[in-house]
């Protein structure tokens, strides 16, 4: 139904994976977007959520006469996805689903995304685009230090590298020493992980008596958490690599929504597949280019689970000026914040409500807690302060330690992160009238 780009030209142009798609003149791009948007409106009519809305507003493919008509379409939020658990947003027959991924939700229940074979091919291509833009070549070896699993990070990059034709070393997350040994022994040219983990690898190399700059990696593709230009300089300097940023979220596809080119002046949005708006989160009106606003993304070509105007809650700025690299697409800045209380801890999305739910699973804990996030070295550390209550207090140390471990385990189960549990005395966590301040984030994550 939707043509996937064919890679017949990549040998001629080592810097741009899909020259036709990535450098398409604005007019042609917008014509393509309009055609795909109409098609999208027709396709999502399979999804009850959109069908009902379209029926109420008398919207159909005919309503889309220009790209400006996008604004007639409804928003989709994370809550909407959760309300349709597990796959109420499916727009194709169940038998066509080739893969299911998940992302953390604001409660213990994650939300799920489905992919057809076509979606997976598209995803690989989108990742190939930013990988090639950032320096990856078919003769390279790339080490994936993102976790594999329901999380989309590992798989998106894995298939993208495969698509480029480079060799993949699927190390997955963790075991820093092993990462370094593999990198050194197998001569990895590229490293894929969160930016903070790149610094951990540099630290780890020094601990092993190795010069991080002498490690074979030359390119780093980092994403999954917010970072700053200072951090980029730090990473590039410590590891002697070229580090590029990429962006994506599983509700939309995973990594591959946008990525940097060698100019490294914003991430090119893959506009032939995603329509991106930047809106004031309060008024939902567009903000002027260059102003921060919430990114709202419409997937133009996703088959299994298309999203109409998905509210990402990510705050960034858009830049329409032409880029030196030759790509004609809109660029987005780094993500500089969130419109909700979601935290990103070592690349894992965590909502304070998940911590609350974990505490509720341990009988006798109070709803009074405080999440402290810090980055003492290169890695995020989370301390959850919990008030102790008489029912839980024991004069026996082993029982008290077991309690901490149990809370920590519940947090791991619900939120997917390891947290230190600090028991504090009653009334030691500040009480708030109205909305409680549950998070104390001491990291410096924006420029």
């Amino acid at each position, binding site marked *: 139904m939707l043509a996937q780009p064919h890679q017949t030209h990549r040998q001629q142009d080592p810097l741009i994976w899909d020259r036709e798609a990535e450098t398409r003149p604005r007019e042609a791009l917008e014509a393509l977007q309009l055609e795909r948007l109409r098609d999208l409106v027709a396709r999502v009519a399979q999804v009850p959520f959109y069908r009902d809305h379209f029926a109420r507003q008398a919207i159909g493919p005919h309503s889309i006469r220009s790209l400006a008509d996008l604004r007639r379409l409804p928003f989709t939020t994370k809550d909407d996805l959760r309300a349709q658990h597990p796959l109420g947003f499916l727009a194709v027959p169940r038998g066509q689903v080739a893969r299911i991924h998940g992302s953390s939700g604001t409660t213990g229940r994650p939300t799920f995304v489905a992919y057809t074979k076509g979606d997976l091919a598209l995803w690989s291509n989108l990742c190939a685009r930013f990988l090639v833009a950032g320096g990856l070549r078919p003769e390279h070896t790339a080490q994936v230090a993102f976790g594999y699993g329901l999380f989309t990070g590992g798989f998106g990059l894995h298939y993208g590298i495969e698509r480029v034709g480079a060799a993949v070393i699927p190390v997955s997350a963790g075991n820093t020493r092993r990462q370094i040994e593999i990198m050194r022994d197998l001569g990895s040219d590229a490293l894929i992980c969160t930016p903070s983990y790149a610094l951990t690898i540099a630290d780890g190399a020094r601990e092993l008596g190795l010069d991080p700059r002498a490690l074979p990696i030359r390119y780093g593709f980092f994403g999954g958490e917010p970072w700053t230009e200072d951090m980029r300089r730090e990473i590039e300097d410590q590891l002697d690599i070229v580090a590029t940023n990429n962006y994506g979220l599983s509700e939309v596809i995973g990594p591959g929504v946008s990525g940097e080119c060698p100019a490294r002046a914003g991430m090119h949005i893959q506009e032939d597949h995603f329509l991106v708006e930047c809106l004031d989160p309060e008024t939902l009106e567009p903000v002027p280019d260059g102003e921060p606003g919430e990114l709202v993304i419409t997937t133009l070509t996703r088959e299994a689970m298309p999203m109409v105007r998905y509210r990402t809650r990510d705050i960034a700025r858009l830049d329409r000026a032409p880029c030196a690299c030759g790509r004609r697409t809109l660029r987005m800045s780094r993500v500089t914040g969130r419109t909700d209380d979601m935290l990103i801890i070592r690349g894992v999305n965590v909502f304070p409500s998940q911590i609350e739910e974990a505490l509720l699973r341990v009988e006798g804990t109070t709803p009074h807690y405080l999440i402290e996030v810090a980055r003492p070295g290169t890695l995020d550390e989370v301390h959850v302060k919990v008030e102790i209550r*008489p029912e839980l207090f024991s*004069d026996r140390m082993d029982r008290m330690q077991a309690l901490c471990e149990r809370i920590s385990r519940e947090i791991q189960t619900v939120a997917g992160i390891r947290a230190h549990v600090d028991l504090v*005395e*009653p009334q030691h966590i500040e009480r708030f009238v109205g909305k409680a301040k549950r998070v104390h984030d001491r990291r410096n994550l924006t420029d």
Partner: protein
Amino acid sequence: MKLQQLSVFLENRPGRLGAPLEAIAAAGINILTLSLADTAQFGILRLIVREWDKAKAILEQAGWIVNLTEVVAVEVPDRPGGLAGVLDVIEGAELNIEYVYAFSLRRDDKAVLIFRFEHPDQAIQVLLGQGLHVIDGDELMGYVG
């Protein structure tokens, strides 16, 4: 024969140990002995005091979490081997000790061991049966005067 021990939850940071002790002292309650078990992050203060019910009320009123635990005090001669003799009895009877701490009495060359047993009543039977001197609250208070 069992003693009431107070346990207090403390955060492990400077000044936290002094506060509950001061609160008890201010009420004129005598502390016979104490022990502190701590981790990097928190501690458990264990206290044997003269008027435990009053001390408990004071601490709780001031916002501390206080537990009441039954412990067993055993008197041993304060000389080499004194402790070992008691432990032999306990191990022989396969009694499970959760923890133990000790203090000595200057007056009588006596030491007192405070045991937290899994099953205190059974432990007391065994200790008495072996002729050991298990002391109750009044006696202990008497020692200290």
